[in-house]
């Protein structure tokens, strides 16, 4: 396959969680994902950004099958995997892997590093033990750890090293797409930089495609080729990183960008205008879901839900008023 073809396609993906009252009667739906569509091309890094509650983590977990989609399609390497649980679609998912916010926490504390690294290969392949061992050692070297770590337990190595082992564990299956869920959240900047470097070098080394879920726009700008901005379960803007960051079309994207402190620049505390907080996803406003906070909202916005408009090169935005 050539570079640039679509490797993962998401169409009309919905994930509703039932909201129940104290008697467990369903009183409504929490629309964590509401008609999300996008495609990921081989070899690119697609950033998914948004604030807490926008559905970006649900998106990652639904793609992985940890949550079962309510509706929609997830086509990965030619197979629709949206409604399958991970162990059912094991064959298809071997090359689609999910990396936790803290990959170190994905290690079973009672298993040695060797055990944790062998497990994906035991589950997905029939490789004999020596071959697995060789692959495991190769991956450990790739993430920059000595082979002597194989016999240690997670609590015997530092947090940063646990992260590296967690990454190595995902890479042993030679995935083509890796979903990175907030890989830098909670990290100090100096550590964050080393992790980003590692992610980029692994991407080059193994020809990976990343779906990079993050709330940190600075990081997304730095490493992503394209970026999708989510608000309350929907993509409100998607496009190349350059286009979205230099000419944001959606008012929400504009506010998000305005909220990032830029050292040496104007102070956000003097200029920031957006008020309020996102409404609850259990009780969405009519029409455009950003209209309750939008400085430009018009009567039209309350009536019709704007679709993603592909009116700009490399960029789409879901806003009636954007130009």
């Amino acid at each position, binding site marked *: 396959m050539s570079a640039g073809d679509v490797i993962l396609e998401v169409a009309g993906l919905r994930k509703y969680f039932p909201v129940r009252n104290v008697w467990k009667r369903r009183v409504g739906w929490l629309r964590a994902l509401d008609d999300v569509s996008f495609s990921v091309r081989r070899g690119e890094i697609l950033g998914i950004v948004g604030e807490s509650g926008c559905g970006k983590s649900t998106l990652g*977990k639904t793609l*992985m*099958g*940890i949550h079962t989609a309510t509706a929609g399609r997830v086509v990965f390497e030619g197979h629709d995997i949206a409604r399958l649980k*991970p*162990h059912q*679609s*094991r064959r298809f*998912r*071997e090359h689609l*892997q*999910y990396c*936790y*916010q*803290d990959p170190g*926490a*994905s*290690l*079973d*504390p*009672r298993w040695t590093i060797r055990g944790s690294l062998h*497990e*994906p290969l035991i*589950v*997905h392949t029939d490789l004999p033990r020596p071959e697995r061992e060789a692959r495991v050692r190769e991956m450990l070297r790739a993430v920059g750890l000595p082979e002597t770590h194989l016999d240690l337990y997670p*609590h015997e190595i530092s947090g940063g090293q646990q992260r590296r082992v967690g990454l190595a564990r995902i890479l042993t299956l030679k995935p083509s797409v890796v979903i990175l869920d907030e890989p830098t959240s909670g990290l100090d900047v100096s550590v964050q930089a080393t992790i980003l470097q590692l992610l980029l070098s692994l991407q080059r080394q193994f020809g990976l495609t990343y779906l990079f879920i993050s709330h940190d726009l600075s990081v997304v700008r730095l490493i992503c080729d394209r970026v999708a901005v989510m608000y309350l379960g929907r993509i409100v803007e998607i496009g190349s990183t350059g286009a979205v960051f230099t000419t944001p079309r959606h008012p929400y994207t504009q506010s998000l960008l305005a909220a990032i402190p830029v050292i040496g620049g104007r102070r956000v505390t003097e200029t920031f205008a957006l008020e309020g907080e996102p409404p609850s996803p259990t009780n969405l406003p009519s029409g455009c879901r950003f209209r309750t906070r939008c400085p430009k909202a018009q009567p039209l916005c309350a009536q019709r839900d704007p679709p993603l408009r592909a009116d700009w090169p490399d960029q789409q935005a879901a806003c009636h008023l954007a130009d």
Partner: protein
Amino acid sequence: MRRVARKLAEDRAAMLGLGLIVLLVLVAIFAPWLATHPGDVTEFHTARRLSPPGPENWLGTDRMGSDIYSRLLFGARITITIAVTAIAIAVVIGVPMGLVAGYYEGIGSDFLMRVSDIFLAVPQIVLAIAIAQTLGPSIENVILALSATYWPFWARLVFAETRSMKNEPFVEAAIALGCSPLRVMVLHILPSISSSIIVRTTIGMGGTILTAATLGFLGLGPPPPTPEWGRTIAESREFLPMAWWYAAFPGLAIFLVVMGFNLLGDGLRDVLDPRLRRASQHGR
């Protein structure tokens, strides 16, 4: 494992408990050699009935003139057989049930848990009496009654622990990796909750021994002349308070064994409890 052993060794109460349990096991194994009158389990000597403790009968004799010391030693075998078998059955039923019900969420797991709720809603002893009474007095039936009343404890414990483990990132990661449910349950969840199961089992052992003795006391245990401790106490009632040794020594034996399991269980909980362990890891 070595860390657990070392920490446990520092806990004097737990070591006392462990000592009592080891003593019980040794006594049960070597009963024929330790007993002064090994034949007295079945034989009786009416001439010596109800003699007080002395050089011939260290702990006195019972109403049939049999040596209480020897009967106690052989009683330890019955106690161990009943407790270990009953608990083993309870664990074998309760743990897989709790695991499956905790792992899958749905009507099936709700049903399993409601069943265990029903069992827990009836006092254990009453249920055990009802079962033993219906089936008739024998060792097998005591074991059956005990395991039938005790399995819900393990089911509930494992259910709750499994539910919370399911939210642990490493379990979720294993699921996302494509591990089969069986693999996740047996290789990831079970080892992580094993310490709770061990603690519960140790403490449960004491409770089971106590219930078994109660059943024996009520005449629902193994029939005479089995030297069951609870039955021995029951027999002694008509000879109290003159023949104090008749009830006191079997009572002491029950007390020490139950206390042994409880002390060890408490000690194990302090050492193995995940919350406490996590706190000590942060300190390092």
